[in-house]
């Protein structure tokens, strides 16, 4: 019998009101700025200056993904795997990196399938601590989700596999314990993305896990593309769409309630998942990006009951009525009207799609926002909206990589590779920046999971990308280009000290109001920095900070100093914001 020890970690962060907790100097501040031509406004962005630099090797992030692909027999998990989580597993205030490894699909219980945990030393470099931390979690890995599942103040990890999934419980002493048997939440099929959220509002985190297709190694198909010969099958070849999984946290054990809540009523080829209150009724809902089948928008229509409303809401298929190949997904408020819009990455020859929430339904606004044409030649997976240039609006990065070989001009080293894309938000539209993906040389790979966060502690957002059968990419934001721009970052915690999932943080700086929702679970197979990061442009002060907690109550906090990280802890604010009622 495995005995789990949950260590209660003392709250050591100084969290009275809104206290700066940034004790680290930016690690790249000493680098002299290059001549980039970047001005202080977004219009001044030089179109060819690299905004990111590849720094994985330099900082010790030496993860090499292995899909196990062998041309004599191809297994479908090999072409869609590879997730990553950014988490502060050792509670030292900086982000560590957890990389999910593939292996060899039919026989994953070998060392080659070990996931890797990299500890951030605090000086911008990393060390592989997989063994001492007990974080290998053998199994053919797909993705992961990181959160404080047991509410003991440290971050745990759930790993989705092609096969049984693994729960890694953080023991609070720098090590993890595999506790899948105790915690449950196993879904032994081909699972993909996972997201923790408290759907029943009972104060603990429940879990949704997508399942791609009803697959086992023995049921794998062999497919021959008419044009390019032997290649991976498409999910619909299996004709085995499945229900996704919802696990309710019942006092620390995750019990499958998929059928009970109504989520077994619709099946699909689930890959991406994101949660949020999409219909603004105060209850959390779910959105599942399906690959080649209708997307599912599960509205929680009454407590504990979900109804699938994808088609009626306008999110099941695109505006032409076409079913698309949903991979990654994010829920953000693109147009600033306080509701959650949805953005999905898709297959080559389909555009990525932006569904804009509008008066009770969603409108396909992909073209209006300039996100259509540029994405048609690519197959998108990981994605994230973040303010890479600290100008106060959300930009977009998409990790790309094919799932079928091209017919001509097949790259010799990797037939599935594609360039990644970085979009700048210009206020009314997004535009692709050069060099593609924002780095030079551009990242051209079979990219899959992507996670976003401030790894080097300098206030801007960096990117980690898992590349299938390639080295991990760490795209470090070149802070020196943003020397005249300001930022602020918040750790938002509830009364227990855990990250306050689905809290909305709104700040006013200058004439700009910005909002972020605390939710690390979006993108593709990945978990992001759980903190709320804001770019302030040239604003030199913040005039208000308000948090709307998941239960709908609001709390104001004293305006904090800029260019620093702060904690916002529930109950420690300055009271309700003026004119606001719970």
């Amino acid at each position, binding site marked *: 019998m495995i005995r789990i020890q949950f260590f209660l970690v003392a709250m050591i962060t100084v969290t009275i009101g809104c206290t700066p907790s940034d004790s680290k100097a930016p690690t790249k501040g000493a680098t002299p700025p290059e001549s980039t031509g970047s001005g202080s406004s977004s219009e001044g962005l030089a179109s060819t200056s690299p905004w990111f630099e590849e720094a994985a090797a330099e900082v010790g992030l030496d993860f090499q993904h292995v899909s196990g692909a062998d041309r004599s027999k191809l297994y479908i998990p090999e072409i869609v795997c590879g997730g990553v989580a950014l988490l502060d597993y050792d509670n030292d205030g900086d982000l560590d990196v957890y990389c999910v490894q593939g292996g060899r699909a039919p026989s994953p219980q070998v060392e080659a399938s070990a996931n890797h945990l990299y500890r951030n030393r605090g000086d911008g470099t990393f060390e592989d601590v997989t063994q001492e931390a007990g974080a290998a979690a053998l199994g053919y890995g797909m993705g992961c989700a990181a959160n404080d599942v047991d509410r003991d103040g440290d971050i745990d990890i759930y790993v989705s596999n092609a096969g049984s999934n693994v729960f890694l419980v953080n023991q609070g002493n720098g090590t993890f314990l595999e506790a899948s048997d105790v915690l449950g939440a196993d879904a032994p*099929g081909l699972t993909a993305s996972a997201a923790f959220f408290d759907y029943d509002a009972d104060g603990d985190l429940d879990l949704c896990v997508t399942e791609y297709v009803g697959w086992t190694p023995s049921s794998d198909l062999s497919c021959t593309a008419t044009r390019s010969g032997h290649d991976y099958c498409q999910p619909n070849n299996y004709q085995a769409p499945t229900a996704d999984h919802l696990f309710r946290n019942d006092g620390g054990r995750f019990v499958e309630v998929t059928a009970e809540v109504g989520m077994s009523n619709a099946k699909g080829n689930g890959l991406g998942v994101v949660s949020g209150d999409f219909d603004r009724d105060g209850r959390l809902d779910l959105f599942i990006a399906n690959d080649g089948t209708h997307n599912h928008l599960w509205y929680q229509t009454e407590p504990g009951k979900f109804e699938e409303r994808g088609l009626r809401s306008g999110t099941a298929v695109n505006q032409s009525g076409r079913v698309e190949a949903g991979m990654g997904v994010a829920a953000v408020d693109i147009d600033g009207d306080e509701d959650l819009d949805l953005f999905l990455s898709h297959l080559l020859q389909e555009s990525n799609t932006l569904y804009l929430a509008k008066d009770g339904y969603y409108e396909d606004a992909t073209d209006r926002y300039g996100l259509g044409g540029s994405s048609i030649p690519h197959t998108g997976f990981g994605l994230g909206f973040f303010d890479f240039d600290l100008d106060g609006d959300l930009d977009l990065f998409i990790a790309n990589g094919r799932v079928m070989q091209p017919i*001509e001009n097949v790259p010799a080293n990797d037939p599935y590779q594609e360039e990644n894309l970085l979009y700048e938000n210009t206020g009314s539209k997004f535009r692709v920046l050069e060099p593609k993906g924002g780095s030079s040389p551009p990242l051209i790979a079979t990219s899959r999971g992507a996670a976003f966060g401030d790894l080097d502690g300098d206030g801007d957002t960096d990117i980690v990308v898992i590349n299938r059968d390639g080295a991990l990419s760490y795209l470090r934001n070149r802070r020196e280009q943003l020397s005249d721009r300001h930022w602020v970052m918040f750790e938002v915690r509830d009364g227990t000290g855990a990250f306050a999932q689905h809290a909305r943080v709104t700040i006013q700086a200058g004439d700009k109001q910005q909002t972020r929702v605390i939710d690390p679970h979006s993108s593709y197979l990945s978990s992001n920095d759980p903190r709320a990061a804001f770019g302030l442009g040239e604003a030199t002060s913040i005039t208000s900070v308000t948090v709307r907690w998941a239960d709908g109550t609001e709390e104001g906090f004293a305006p904090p100093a800029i260019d620093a990280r702060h904690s916002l802890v529930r109950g420690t604010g300055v009271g309700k914001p003026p004119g606001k009622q719970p």
Partner: protein
Amino acid sequence: MLSRMHQQTDSPAISSHASIPETRTPGPRRGTGAALSCALAVVLLAVSSCTPSKPPPPITRLSNLDVDPLILARVDEEVRKAADAPGNPKVRCRLAYAYDANGLEEPAITEYRALGKIAPNDPLWPYRAAICLIESGNAAGGRAEIVAVTERFPNFAPAWHRLALIHLEEGDLAAARAAIDRCLASRPLSLPGKTTLADIHLREGDAERAVSILEDVTRAATDDRHARFLLGRAYQRTGRDDAVVEVLLSEGAGAVARAVEDPREQTMAGLQTGLAREVDRGIALIQAGRAADAVRVLEAALRAHPNDSNIMLNLAQARAQAGDTPGALSMIKTAAETDSKNFRVHLVRAILELGAGDAAMNPKATGSLGAPPPAASDADREKARKHYETALASGSRAARFGPKEWRSHFTYARAAHRSGQLDLARSALEKAQQIVPNDAEVNQFMFELTWQLNDRKAALAALERVVAVNPNNLVSWVNLVHTRAALEDFEGAAAALERARAIDPGHPRVIGAAEKLDTLRAAAGSSQTNSPRSP
């Protein structure tokens, strides 16, 4: 994707002339007379005697032999015909279509280019080559060639329509509008053209105009699912939100836009083949009740793909529907041996064996789930027992290899029930119930089974689920009357009786249930009165 839009056809609004290339070189003007014709003939004769005539472009043969044997056979046939008449555009056209229809874009493009040399003033060949280029993944190259076709053949509506759709995908509504206007100028009655115009209006935010156009289109083309989807969306945008909208959206989602076609393109569909296509054809024929045709199609497919269990699976079902039970059982047995871990194969085998067992017991058996098998001779019983035994083994395998599929457990339960293993049947059925807790069929069977097992409470629970799902099923309400009465819940039984009466007060079952309830109530009252423990 723009892929395969050519598979659906435009109603040829002006088909009488549309098959004629639209920029054909004009013939001699009236009145120029025979003299000119003769002179021309003389000149042509002189030229032909001096210059050797240009040989037609060579036939494109398939170099990649790693293709589906069904496709290979179809292409080979057209190659043979084209080799006999390499200068005949009709024959060459069929060869190009055979490649095109079967996703072999590269040789299709080569053939279309050859046709472009044979008949240079026909816009169809460069147009189809451009489509193939797009299909092959070269979207930019294909787009450029479509533009070139519109410039060279400005009255060729299919190219304008395609260009409009490309602009729509690119989000350039103004350019899409300009292109669709050109398309409709050439074919003002084209329904796919009008549908695209409505799509543009919808994207521009003018839902009222879109509704007006789409209502006309869907009246004229009731099977145009894409237009129906757009109409659903357009209704939504005008504030309508009712069952009609839901039906339009659910029926139309996933359908692709119909293309404005050159009528000659319709030939292509008949040349399409391949494993998936033939299996789909077989399934469609089974669903249409044309089992004999399905058997023919699937047997041909199986000859080309002798180890494909999916074909076998469908062929077994087609044979069963055609009345060839031994052929069906033999086929599904082979499928189970070929693909032993495929739960679908075992599931279908269990279902077929159950059917054969029931037929052996009584050719008129209705297959009622809980009904005891009717009387039969010993030989029939033995025959049925063997079928049920095989069904039980197959059902067990289906449940093992398809543990998340409720039908596997349900069928296993049926087989166990037929074999007299009621506890096993209940256990399997409970698994099905866990997967689909509100399924009426599963709960109805659970009701019948637990009733048989004398577990009235479980029977009641299952039946209550049945009526919750099917509140207008009279028989279920009557059963509920009996079940509640058996548990001495007379008030509940009376309530169920009222529901049954509301559906059909004069139905004999309702009248019978009312009488039974009265009798039981009276008996219970009397027994309570006579009870020694009653006060």
